[in-house]
């Protein structure tokens, strides 16, 4: 908890797709927030590129969860509403719903997570992506937080407890 508060106080914000070291290594003690993504208050991120939006959970979220051991994902072809749950993540400490920041049709899921759920810890913004959507209402992105806002949100959430 202390490390998490310190990490949030010394917030790192990365503009580039920086490679992130594994979650459990001693050298890794800060949660990162990437510019260019949008963030939900339930700690999911979304990257909108053309007709497709990619979704995953944030570094802050995976850090709190601990080592991920199982990921439950939907089948492609289904749809999800903004704020609705599309799957779950099981870690050694708990299970947690994963909620979609935007509405849309699921066009792809990350099949690598079945064999390698730890990708969510090692690479939450890249190899640990969870689903890809065709957004049904792109204006929903405007209701989400940018990197600075999400950083502040995490700091306030940690400070309030």
């Amino acid at each position, binding site marked *: *908890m202390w490390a998490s508060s310190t990490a949030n106080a010394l917030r790192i914000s990365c503009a580039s797709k920086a490679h992130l070291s594994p979650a459990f290594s001693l050298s890794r003690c800060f949660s990162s927030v990437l510019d260019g993504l949008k963030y939900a208050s*339930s700690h999911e991120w979304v990257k909108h590129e053309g007709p497709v939006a990619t979704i995953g959970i944030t570094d802050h979220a995976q850090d*709190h*969860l*601990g080592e991920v*051991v*199982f990921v*439950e994902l939907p089948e492609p072809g289904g749809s999800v509403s903004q*704020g609705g*749950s599309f799957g*779950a993540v*099981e*870690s*050694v*400490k*708990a*299970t*947690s*719903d994963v*909620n979609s920041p935007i509405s849309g049709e699921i066009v792809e899921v990350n099949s690598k997570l079945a064999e390698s759920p730890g990708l969510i810890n090692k690479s939450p913004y890249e190899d640990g992506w969870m689903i890809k959507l065709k957004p049904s209402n792109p204006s929903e992105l405007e209701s989400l937080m940018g990197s600075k806002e999400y950083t502040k949100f995490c700091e306030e*959430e*940690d400070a309030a*407890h």
Partner: protein
Amino acid sequence: MGSPGKIGVPVMNLVRLKGVPILQQLHLEERLLRTSSHNWCIINDATNQPTIVMGVSGKPAELLEIESVLCDQIPVVRRFTGGGTVLVDPGTIFVTFICNKDAVAGVQPHPQPIMYWSGALYNKVFQGVGDFHLRENDYVFGDRKFGGNAPSITKNRWIHHTSFLWDYEVRNMAYLKLPARVPEYRLARGHLEFICRMKDYLSRSVFIDRTIEAAKTHFSVRSTDLEAIETTANTKFCPSTKLLTMQELETVAKFASQSKVSLSQSFSL
């Protein structure tokens, strides 16, 4: 169930059950977590028959001595929360807290804070009784586990449910394999060297009474009964917790048996 409690203190609806089947309890919990907006404490003093309960990602072939389970017709449930496999029976006491994310001051809706909060609550329950600790995700006396936990977090709520080994049958441990993933403090101990009985420390009624008293330090506790909940139930909700069918278990056993045959053939070549 929804009227306000003392000023600033959230209401916790207490449901006391006795001998309710674990599948029914889990269905109730899943429904309350997903469809209710109230806080709940469910205490089930024993379940009616020995039942194996796996976590959400549990694989019977890896976790169970499947032939024995089939032979003795032990029911197997896959619950909606994560974590390990337990064999529950009339010697098990269940305590579950279901809370809105802001219900407990100072507790973030994340695994660690929820575990620490529960550890502090049970510290009050077991004050002066044994050498109680929260150890990784378990409740222990010394270094022996008597309580296992499984928190689960949704967007706006969380559940923390615990099964306490007030007593257990030694022979029932034979249905469970040693899991691949174990807490560090377990070291290399088998089931019987790793667990202990709460009955050696506290009676059932004192434990339950003390737990309710400890809950009252955080909530305004109001008793309600199962009938009251069932009449207002959301009948459309379909729980994911399920009882595995005999066919599913037989398929696992058949596949396990075929794998053994293939393996022994490979060695004999």
